[in-house]
């Protein structure tokens, strides 16, 4: 009886460790309110606007993730949903990497949990607000685990994993590559089935991108500024070996810039190589070839964007959707499963040298703590950078005023993509108004990085910029209405005055709402609508099959296989 209890505790240890690390990583993000950091914008009630459904004028960068949030926040509210998503993602990643090495010792699993959650890729993408990418990252180890035995059938749990892993273009790409690589040995019918699932799960962003009126090619400057960057003492390719090298130094933990960052990389490489030597000598690792392929692709893309950003810039400028690769280290998540697996093999090799169980436990725990000790500043939401805040009351007032405004779209001023409002602790965030207002909102999609503007793709945004440059308030209002804008919401931000626009002011204070009069924005064409309806139907089909097979499986649990075919 005591033995069973001990076994249960040992089995639960990696899960508990994943929970502890995740809570420690998120810190203040789990408090009341919303965590608003760079691209991470959550609001109380996201509306299903044209943009959210992939029918807007800008490139669909948050399709289908925003649509999923818009539906789910009806149940939980945006604040709680954000915490569930962030905590679930990190715990899912930690437990996933433990499951990836479940045939190894508990100590090795603990090390896998630490390495899978407490690494630069997770910390930096978290602060940069790439939560759909992190969900995709958390899905990867589970996909590998579930697809290992694909020769015996395609597990039904792959369907929800594929849907979860395809909430954005980049995560969908990672999910597809890893799934197809691991399932490479399956027969043609199962590979086709998997491919159909992947196509359905990724259909919304693919269709939205292909039919978007925005340019599907990107500014070559983007590849230069978003390429893999150096981290302190580590050149980009070296930093990428330990899953770092993000382009934006503002989100890099300080510890990565010093000796600790270099030591982290050296230790990781040495231990992974030791694991590789053991594998070469005969330690069995399922799907090692597929994991190596994914590592090469993830690390290789990061290195390519560091060494030859102009090549990726050319790709983005000439090949539709080629800009997906411009953020070179974004696909590094694909490199993590191999490294975690090799490290776990090496850890077991070391622990095998110790006969005493207690000693093995001590050494194992110490190894599991080393990544934490080398990046202590990642704790508590990168030292408070993920602190949750409440929106000012003026946001709710503006939402109400915009809801009652005449037909047409809204415009958010000042016309800049990012801001650092005082109510958000001065932390930078993408303009929250387009998501907060229950109406399609035109924003500036020109990004400025280190003083270099990266041209946007939204032609309507360019039209509005020209309208705002008109000489008088009346001319600006007239030009904006011609561009389909019926209401303007201006936030007072020190140093960034908004141009005056003639109209009726219906709300004042920190957010001024000015009605311009009814306007007509061009509706999406029939072809685009048809494509998006078909894409969403395919997405729903994958989701419903996943839910349906889960229900059927639950009813016929005894004596049934857990596969789709």
């Amino acid at each position, binding site marked *: 009886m005591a033995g069973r209890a001990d076994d249960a505790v040992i089995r639960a240890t990696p899960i508990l460790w994943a929970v502890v690390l995740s809570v420690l990583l998120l810190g203040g993000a789990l408090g009341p309110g919303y965590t608003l950091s*760079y691209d991470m914008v959550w609001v109380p009630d996201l509306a299903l606007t044209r943009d959210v459904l992939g029918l807007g004028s800008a490139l669909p960068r948050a399709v289908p993730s925003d649509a999923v949030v818009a539906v789910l926040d009806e149940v939980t509210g945006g604040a709680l949903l954000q915490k569930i998503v962030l905590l679930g993602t990190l715990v899912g990643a930690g437990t996933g990497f433990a499951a990836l090495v479940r045939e190894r010792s508990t100590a090795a699993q603990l090390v896998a949990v630490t390495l899978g959650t407490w690494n630069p890729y997770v910390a930096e993408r978290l602060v*940069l607000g790439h939560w759909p990418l992190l969900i995709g990252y958390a899905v990867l180890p589970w996909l590998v685990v579930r697809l290992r035995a694909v020769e015996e059938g395609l597990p039904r749990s792959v369907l929800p994993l594929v849907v979860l892993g395809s909430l954005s273009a980049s995560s969908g790409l990672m999910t597809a590559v890893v799934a197809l690589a691991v399932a490479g040995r399956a027969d043609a019918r199962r590979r086709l089935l998997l491919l159909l699932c992947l196509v359905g799960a990724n259909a919304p962003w693919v269709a939205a991108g292909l039919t978007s009126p925005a340019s599907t090619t990107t500014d070559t400057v983007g590849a230069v*500024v978003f390429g893999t*960057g*150096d*981290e*302190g003492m580590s050149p980009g390719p070296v930093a990428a070996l330990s899953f770092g090298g993000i*382009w*934006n*130094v*503002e*989100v*890099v*933990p*300080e*510890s*990565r*810039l*010093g*000796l*600790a*960052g270099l*030591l982290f990389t050296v230790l990781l490489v040495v231990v992974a190589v030791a694991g590789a030597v053991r594998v070469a000598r005969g330690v069995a690792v399922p799907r090692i070839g597929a994991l190596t392929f994914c590592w090469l692709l993830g690390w290789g893309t990061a290195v390519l964007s560091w060494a030859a950003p102009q090549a990726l810039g050319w790709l983005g400028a000439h090949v539709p959707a080629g800009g997906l690769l411009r953020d070179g280290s974004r696909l590094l998540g694909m490199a993590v499963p191999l490294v975690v697996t090799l490290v776990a093999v090496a850890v077991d090799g070391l622990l095998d040298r*110790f*006969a*005493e169980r*207690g*000693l093995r436990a*001590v*050494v194992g725990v*110490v190894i599991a*703590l*080393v990544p934490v*000790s*080398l*990046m*202590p*500043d990642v704790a508590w939401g990168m030292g408070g950078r993920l602190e949750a805040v409440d929106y000012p009351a003026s946001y709710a007032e503006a939402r109400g005023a915009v809801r009652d405004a005449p037909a047409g779209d809204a415009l958010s001023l000042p016309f*800049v*993509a*990012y*801001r*650092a409002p005082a109510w958000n602790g*001065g932390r*930078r965030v993408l303009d929250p108004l387009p998501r907060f207002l229950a109406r399609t909102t035109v924003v500036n999609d020109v*990004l*400025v*990085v*280190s*003083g270099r503007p990266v041209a946007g793709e939204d032609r309507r945004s360019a039209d509005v910029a020209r309208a705002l440059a008109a000489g008088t308030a009346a001319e600006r209002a007239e030009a904006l209405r011609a561009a389909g804008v019926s209401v303007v919401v201006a936030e007072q*931000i020190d*140093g*960034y005055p908004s141009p005056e626009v003639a109209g009726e002011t219906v709300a004042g204070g920190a957010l001024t709402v000015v009605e311009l009069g009814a306007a007509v924005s061009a509706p999406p064409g029939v072809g685009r609508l048809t494509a998006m309806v078909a894409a969403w139907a395919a997405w729903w089909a994958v989701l419903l099959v996943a839910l349906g097979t889960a229900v059927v499986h639950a009813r016929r649990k005894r004596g049934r296989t857990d596969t789709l075919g």
Partner: protein
Amino acid sequence: MGSVVAPVVSILAGAVLGVTTLMGVVSSQTAAPEKSPGNVEQPTLEYGTVSE
């Protein structure tokens, strides 16, 4: 033999963790100030800063 190995390995393990913790803490406190977000020009306008 075992009674000697256990304390030695434990001390070594503790020392390793102590050294890495020290390095981590020191590195996180002594990074170059120009990398700090507080020193970035026009903080409300830009999306980010690349390493030079």
